[in-house]
Every structure is written in C-alpha cells, then in structure tokens.
C-alpha cells in the first residue's frame, strides 16, 4: 500500500477532458484524471458509468470524441492500440478475451513477444517468460492446457498474466477479481500489491469493495461518464454523493454501524466492518414447502474429466438454496447438468414429480427451470428488449407477455432506459441485469443463478438480492451460486457446500454462516 509508494506527484498518465460519445450518449464525459507514478488508483462507479470505456479510450480501442491522453509527457491520443501497448500500457478485459484455441502458455507468450520488451525477445524466450509470469499469477499448473478449458476465475488470471507479460509501466485492471471468493480475493490483492511494489503503476476498476479499499492509494468515482469524486478511500466512502450513486445506504450503514469508517484504509479492520460478527438471523423468508427438485447421485463431467461425483441434493418449493464452494468445486457444472447443457452420466434428476434425467435442455426450460448462466450469454446483436423476449420463447400466453415485460422493466429500470440498445453495447453490469431479466421473463418455477453479483456495483447487488427475495416470496424457488458467500448465505434458507465435485456439508444458512470451517475457507476470516 502507500508505504511502498514513492513521494507522489510525478504524473505518469494525464487524461484531460476526455469525452467519448456513442450516438447521443456520452459514455465518458469530460473526465480529467491523473495517475501518479507508483500509485494504485482505484476507479469505482455504478454499472454503465463509463469505467470500461474510459480504459478503452486510454488504450486506443475507442476513439476519443474530444480530449487528450498524455503518457510520460507524450501525447498518445491518436496512437494505435498496439503502439500504446508497446509503450508500456497494458490492460485486462472485463469480458475476458482469451485466445481460446491456444495453450495458456502461448496466450501469455504473445504478450511477452509484443510488449514493451518484445523486440529483445525471441519467440522461445517469450515462452519461457510466459511460464514465469504464469507461476506468479497462480496458473503454473495449467500451462499446457488450452485456454478454452479454463474456468472464469482462471480466465481472469490469464488476462492478468497476458498483461503482465508485456512488462508494462502502467497496468489497467478491469475487474480482474470478479468471480473470486474471499480467500482468492486476498491472494489477488497480495499479488497486485507485489506487482505495484515492483514499480508498476496500477489503475484498478473493481466492484469488490474489500479489495479496492484495501489496495488503492486513491479512489476516483465515475457516474454517468463524469468524475464525481476523487480522493483518499476513507473520504470517498463517506461522500454522500458516492453513497447515493454507488455504495447504497445499506452498505454505508453496515460500515458505519461497525464504527470503522474512520479507519477504512486499514484493510483488515474494514473487512470486519463489512462482515458483522454475530448478526442475528432474521427468518424473513417464508417457510418452505414440498420437494421441488430432487437430485440423486448425480455424476457428470467433460470429456475424460469427471467433475461431479455422486451429488445428491434437494430444493424445496419456495426455498432459496445457496451452493457454496471454491472455484473448480463443480458449482457451475452442477447448474449446467441440471439444465442438461452437460449430460448426466449417472444418477437422477427429478423436478416437480417429473423425471428430467434424460430430458433435453428445452424440455428442462419447458418444465419451469431457467438458468441464468455465468458470463451472461446474451445475444449481443439483439436489443435489450429482444433479449428479454427470448426468455418467453416457450410460452403460449401471449396476452400477458407485455405485462411481464413491464414488470421486469419495473424491477430493473435500467433495462427500460436501455431497451432499444444492442445487448453487446451494454456495460458488464447491465448485461448481468439483462440476463436476470431474461430469466424472469419465462416465469420460472425454479431459477438457477450462477454468480449473481459478478461485476455489479454494491448498490445493484443489494437491489438484485431484494429482487430475488421479492420473486421468491411470490413463489419462485432459487438455487444460487455466489462467490460472495456471506451475501449468499444471508439471503438463503439453506446451503450446500461442494468440494471437488462432492457435497460435503448441507445445513441451514445461518448455521453455515456461523460454522468456523466455512468462515475460514470461504470468508477469509
């Protein structure tokens, strides 16, 4: 942290009044920002605030409508992306962009070949360099694997490795920690601090507040494309404007009630402020009823790899059940198997009295199970409204579809504002809302949600969780996968813990929340 930062003031990157318009909409609107040599600057802001567009503008992927970008005193506003990369600015992509058919090593080797020191390296030296970088980010055991085989958190690590291999002076990290659990976030923070200590200046966009508060020397806040605040993290989280636009009252209250706001820059203290020790369990959710989903001894996997091993679980009518486990434990595979996108190898799936073990994916949807997948899987070339309407594909009751659309728009007003826009043009968080909205449109009896909070502002996460409680009260049953174990268990009735493809524990949510083993393994306490 700031202990290692040199005496501040030398600006490495200066951004002067940059604006980027898409049609009539200013995604970035006259932003001035300075990144000082050696610092870690955090950038936060609501979904769709223009954070990613800001990075795109700095790196030349988006052309500026107006304004100026200066790196090391040199105007790089009109430079092509590859030249900016070679000058020493590297970035990661929020929506990961792996070179899918290549091995993990070759993905990173390309960064080493064409980055700041690329000219000095031969192709084989670059491959060696790639292995060093991969070991550093914790992918050392996956060097030979094809990038398409990686899970989302590993793909995030790969993004970081690709950028690091370019030997950047300035590293722009766009949500590299989304999808990591608490323990993994800790190690990612540690890694970013180390990279910074090696002399790399870092701009980090992140919604994981614990992380961004813990590593940033300064924070800047974007809202509707404008910079609304800039300063020390401790000051920023107390700014009423920031609370209203981004953090949300609940988050602020939690932090405030723990009485720690004055010391938020102390990472550990802040973390405790966010995770109140013994919050009494309030059973605000209705009592569950009949068995809706019954899974017995389910096994599945990909190719020669078996992921799920004899998984048995039940979800009762009206419940919210959380699935907890480290990355790679098989949570996503379980959801994929339930919706038949991965075929079960043995075991059985019963849903509302029907045997769905050998059903096709569309029959699963027809039976009333809808899957909100990790990574959204929207149709990028369709508008938001068209995407939502894809959710009613199997429905016959045309008359009420309009009402349902209105209902989803009311639940997620941002989608209404964006209803005519192409889904591919939405910000990451807006895409997540759209995916949830599309799921709701099919009026599911059971919703499988994979990584609800991925890439979402704290305020929006709260809203979505409220939304889930709300639809749950109206009768929708939910099976939730969520890296933020705390949040998941606070909103669930029960939880199952998965480890290496097996269910190792099943209890009521409050019990899991108090369980010291769970707290240590998944909450990083």
């Amino acid at each position, binding site marked *: 942290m700031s202990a290692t930062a040199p005496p501040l003031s030398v600006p490495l990157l200066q951004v002067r009044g940059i604006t980027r318009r898409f049609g009539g909409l200013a995604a970035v609107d006259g932003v001035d920002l300075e990144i000082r040599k050696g610092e870690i600057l955090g950038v936060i802001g609501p979904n769709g605030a223009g954070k990613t567009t800001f990075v795109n503008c700095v*790196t*030349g*992927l988006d052309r500026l409508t107006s304004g100026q970008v200066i790196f090391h005193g040199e105007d790089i506003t009109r430079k*092509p*992306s*590859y*030249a900016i*990369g*070679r000058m020493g600015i*590297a*970035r990661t*992509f929020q929506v990961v*962009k*792996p*070179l*899918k*058919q*290549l091995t993990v090593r*070759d993905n990173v*080797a*390309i*960064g080493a*070949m*064409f*980055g*700041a020191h*690329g000219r000095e390296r031969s*192709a*084989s030296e*670059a491959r060696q360099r790639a292995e060093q970088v991969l070991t550093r980010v914790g992918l050392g055991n996956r060097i030979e694997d094809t990038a398409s085989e990686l899970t989302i958190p590993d793909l995030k690590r790969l993004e970081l490795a*690709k950028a690091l291999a*370019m030997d950047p002076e300035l590293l722009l990290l766009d949500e590299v920690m989304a999808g990591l659990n608490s323990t993994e976030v800790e190690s990612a923070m540690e890694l970013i601090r180390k990279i910074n200590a090696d002399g790399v200046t870092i701009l980090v966009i992140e919604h994981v507040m614990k992380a961004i508060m813990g590593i940033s020397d300064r924070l800047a806040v974007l809202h509707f494309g404008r910079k609304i605040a800039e300063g020390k993290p401790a000051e920023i989280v107390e700014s009423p404007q920031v609370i209203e636009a981004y953090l949300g009252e609940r988050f602020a209250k939690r932090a405030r009630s723990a009485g720690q706001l004055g010391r938020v820059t102390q990472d550990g203290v802040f973390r405790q402020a966010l995770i109140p020790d013994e919050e009494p369990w309030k059973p605000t959710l209705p009592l569950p009823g009949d068995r809706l989903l019954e899974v017995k001894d389910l096994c599945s996997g990909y*190719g*020669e790899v078996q992921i799920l091993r004899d998984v048995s679980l039940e979800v009762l009518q009206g419940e919210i059940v959380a699935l907890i486990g480290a990355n790679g434990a098989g949570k996503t595979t379980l959801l994929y198997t339930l919706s038949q996108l991965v075929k079960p190898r043995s075991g059985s799936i019963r849903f509302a009295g029907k045997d769905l073990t050998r059903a096709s994916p569309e029959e699963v949807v027809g039976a009333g199970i809808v899957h909100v997948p990790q990574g959204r899987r929207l149709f990028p070339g369709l508008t938001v409204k068209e995407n939502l309407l894809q959710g009613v594909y199997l429905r016959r009751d045309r008359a009420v579809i309009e009402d349902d659309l209105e209902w989803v728009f009311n639940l997620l007003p941002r989608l209404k504002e964006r209803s005519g826009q192409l889904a591919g043009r939405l910000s990451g968080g807006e895409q997540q809302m759209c995916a949830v909205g599309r799921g709701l449109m099919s009026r599911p009896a059971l919703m499988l949600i994979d990584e609800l909070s991925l890439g979402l502002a704290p305020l929006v996460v709260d809203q979505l969780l409220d939304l889930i409680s709300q639809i749950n009260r109206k009768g929708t049953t939910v099976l939730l996968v969520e890296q933020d174990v705390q949040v998941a268990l606070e909103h669930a009735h029960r939880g199952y813990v998965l480890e290496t493809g097996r269910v190792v524990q099943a209890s009521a949510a409050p019990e899991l929340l108090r369980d010291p083993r769970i707290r240590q393994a998944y909450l990083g306490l």
Partner: protein
Amino acid sequence: MRVFRAGFLLAALAALLLLPRFVTSYKLLTYTTVLCLAIMAQGWNFIGGFAGYAAFGNVAFFGIGAYTTGLLMISKWHLSFFPALAAGALLSACVAALLGFPILRLKGHYFAIATLGVAEAFREVAGAWDKVTEGATGIDLPLRSDSNFYYYTALGFVVFGVALTAYLARSKLGYGWVAIREDQDAARMLGINTTLFKVAAYALSATFSSIAGGIIAYQNIHVAPNDFFKIEYTLQTIIACVIGGTGTVWGPLLGAAVYQLLSTYVWSHFIELHPTVLGAIIVFFVVFLPRGLMELLRRFGAVARGGRFGSDVFLANVRASRLD
C-alpha cells in the same frame, strides 16, 4: 517417435522425387496440378488458417501470376520462366497489399464477399483488356519439351512452403496471426500491429497463389480468363485446407492430396453423381472434422505416445472440434 517421423518424411520425399520415372508424362501433369493445389492451399493457410480471414478470392492472384508469367515470357524481353514467375509473384503481393489495406478492415463474411468480388473483377479485366491479354482468346506460352520440369518446380515450391510454414508457425509473425484469428481486440492490446500482420498474411498468400498460377500457365501453354480465374480453384484450395487442417504445417499438403484422391476415386466410380458425392464428403469433413485430418492424427499420435487407447479418439475429436 521423432526418428520415425523424420524417416517417414525422407521416404515420402524420395518417393516424390522418383515419381516421374514411374508414371507417364500425361499422368505427371495431374500430379503437378495436385502440387499446385497444395501450393495454393499453403498460401491460403496463411490468411485463412493462421490469421482467420476467409479469403474467397485467391484465384485472382492465381490468374495474375499466370498472366504475368506468360506475358513476360512472350514479351519483347523474352524473360525466362523463373524471372517471369518472380515478377508475377511480386506483382500479386503488391496488389494484395494494396487491396488488403481497405478490405482487411472488413470481418467475417463481409471480407469473404469483398474478396470474391475482387476475383470476379480481375476476370473481367483479363477478358476485356484485349490489347494486353488478347481478351477471351487468351495468350500462348512457349512450349517446353521436358515435362518433368513443371513437376519438379512445383515440388520444390511445396517443400519450400512446408519449411516456411513450419518456420512462421513458431515465429512472432505466426503467433501474431493466430492472436488476430482468436481475438482481434486482444491482439491489438497485446502490442500486435494487426493491420500490418493481416496485410502480410494476405500478400504472402497471394504470392503462393501467383506461383501456382505461373507454373500451371507454363504447363498448359495457354492462358485464358475463364480457365484461370475460376472460382472453383479458390473453393478447392479452401476445401484442401479444411480437409487437411487449417492453421497447421502439413494440413494444406495433406488436404490437397486427399482431395485429389477423393475426387479421382469419385470420378471413376460415380461418374454421373460426381459433384454430389464429392459435396457429401466435404460436408462430412466440415461437420465431423472441422479441424481436419491433422487434428485427428495429432490425437492418434497422443494415444501412440502412451495415452489411453480409446475407441473414442475419433469421437473425442468430433466433440472437441465443435465450432461455437
């Protein structure tokens, strides 16, 4: 394994070198044509296989190569074959580079359509530019009595093509192309000058097409627009690459050979249904082996090296190759 492979390759090369002793000179013409298809496929592999740009107009450079070689040989300077061939290749590379800057900005099927249009335009030019190309009649090249010459020339270029592809696949240029194929924005951010790399791939593919065109022109001793600017040649080129394996070193050569074998076999057995049967075979390859025979060989190789022997190697390949 390595020794075995090297031995196999040397034996194959020796067989190819000795081939003219054992076949009639008429038959040898066919083999030369196959080698030229392999050269075209090797060229297409750079732009289509490595850089991932579906070029559908490479026959334009085949034609340019044929005409330039021929015209320079019968011009008042009476250039000999190789300088004329080189001039054609250079011209094709320049044309490809100039065209590449605008059309390589297009993506996917838009790029394919643009290249298709370019090829048609060149055919029209060749047919209409009477003063130089003698229009639809075409031009006649000097006759050469030694028919082995064409075969060995083509074989030489095929060997060169394999070596060059093998070298480039491990070079920065090759890595850059593959990065562009996989994700262009990611490639740009990794410091790759995507425009330059794409133009290089396109120009290189044009060079190879042009050389194949020159050799065929000299062998046929007659060049006419409708024989040399045939869309079929582009299609055969792409099919050869797909059958063999796009983006691989040996794929284009293997694919060209297999395509020719299939085509000949189908000709002799299903004379009336020839295109239908051949089409069905191509569909089979695209559906079940979209990454081509090289990928299948790679998987069998992995099994031979001590991997589990499964009857499902083929199915695993099909599954892994599913295009999404």
